[in-house]
């Protein structure tokens, strides 16, 4: 998983294939629980781009992406949101199932 920030976010999500972004922040404990599972998932799907974005340094960007609750994992295609998982819904099983659906 690659750490991105507000400056290179737009560029990274402009991909014809699925790009997966994990929005997190240092004060969010559920986010930190999800992170290693996402790392593991990304190592199994090497051909998919996995990014993590610290929203405490990019709050405006997150809000512009209509994200007001984390952990939030969003799937992008051509820069458009196609699927998102928030809070209790952001389980690794649900994310992997959706990943298989979109790739």
């Amino acid at each position, binding site marked *: 998983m690659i750490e991105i920030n507000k400056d290179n976010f737009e560029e990274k999500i402009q991909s014809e294939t699925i790009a997966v972004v994990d929005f997190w922040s240092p004060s*969010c*404990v559920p986010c930190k*629980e999800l992170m290693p599972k996402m790392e593991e998932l990304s190592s199994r799907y090497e051909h998919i781009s996995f990014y993590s974005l610290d929203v405490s340094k990019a*709050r405006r960007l*997150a809000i512009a992406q209509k994200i007001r609750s984390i952990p939030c994992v969003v799937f992008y295609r051509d820069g458009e949101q196609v699927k998102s998982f928030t*809070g209790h*819904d952001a389980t690794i*099983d649900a994310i992997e199932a959706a990943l298989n659906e979109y790739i």
Partner: protein
Amino acid sequence: MKSLSYTIINWIDWLKYGEERSFTEGLSKQTVCLFVIVSGTRTPYGQNSEKRNITHGAIRKEELSGKQTEKKDTFFFCLFFYFRLFHGNRERRSQRREKFLIYDVIILGAGPAGLSAGLYAARAKMQTLIFEKSVVGGQIATTHEVENYPGSPENSTGPSLVERMKEQALTFGAELVSAEITKVDFSGKEKKVFVGEQEYTAKSVIVACGATPKQIGCEGEDEFRGRGVCYCATCDGPFFEDKHIVVVGGGDTAVEESLYLSKIAKRVTIIHRRDALRAAKSIQEKAFANEKIDFLWNSVITKIEGQGPVQRIHLENTVTKETSILEADPDDGVLGIFVLVGFNPETQLVEGLIDTENGYIITDAEMRTSQEGVFAAGDIRKKSLRQVVTATADGAIAAVSAEKYVEALAE
């Protein structure tokens, strides 16, 4: 003799590198080595310099495909396939071994109750396995301030308390696994716990699954989840910096988190269905003294609305039944709603297997449930006070009871 030494060299080579080669995947190493050695001594192709140069993988392939025509080899073929079929590969064997490992105690849940039980059990030298499906620490992992746990330093946070509890349990040898239990079987002497197909066995089980946040249950709540309806103040509070936040609930968690949110938001409104808070007096006083916090008594939310984010909520007075609407500040364009209305016990897994009352597990003072060898601890239990301190106390008692039970089994 040349061919014999050649195969032995191959054998050693293979022991060193065999695992990495795809050709050998799934083959039982020793079995094939045996075959190579035995058949090698009987097939004198070692004289042939051309064949000596080919890789040993290829030699084996050649042998296995039966290019060596000696009839005796058929016997070794049979021997090989016999071993291949009945002795399986290493991975399968280790899985089988894992399946037969019997723990002294399996603890379901790694909140304060589960971690405390894990600490006591591991200190008693019991083989201890703790399962957690989502967040280690449970509810306190998402609570900003925990000021009522005895001995906690001032301004100690929920996550830091959890981290210390976890480290302590692991130091004494408890195992912590992040997985969701899908099924349990408490009927036999050996208690079984399933994670999908994987089976774990223990002599005793401590159920410490805790409770999950309750929802309001009003129209629009699910629709706006993650778009203004939140359940974790420390996670999502910062999204509502200098905005108006509504907190629903009147217990310790609701009021404590309102105090935390008041540092971020420009205004916090606590909506409570009664006319008095349930929270501890000391935090109530802090909330009443806080200029940013105001209250809407005897009120419930009936509907959440908005285009995009949450923009307005419909309220009903529980006494007069009057309805009203709370709009987001036009400058903000968004309203943050934090739902902190209490918790539901996580008893789905053990439903019907042990006695419960209103969803909470009934135990005696030793934390024994209606099922022998199964104990319960923490918020999942039927009890009068659900706090971190009572959860950890439950965990300690449950672990000691489980230890006594396991010892009695051995006698």
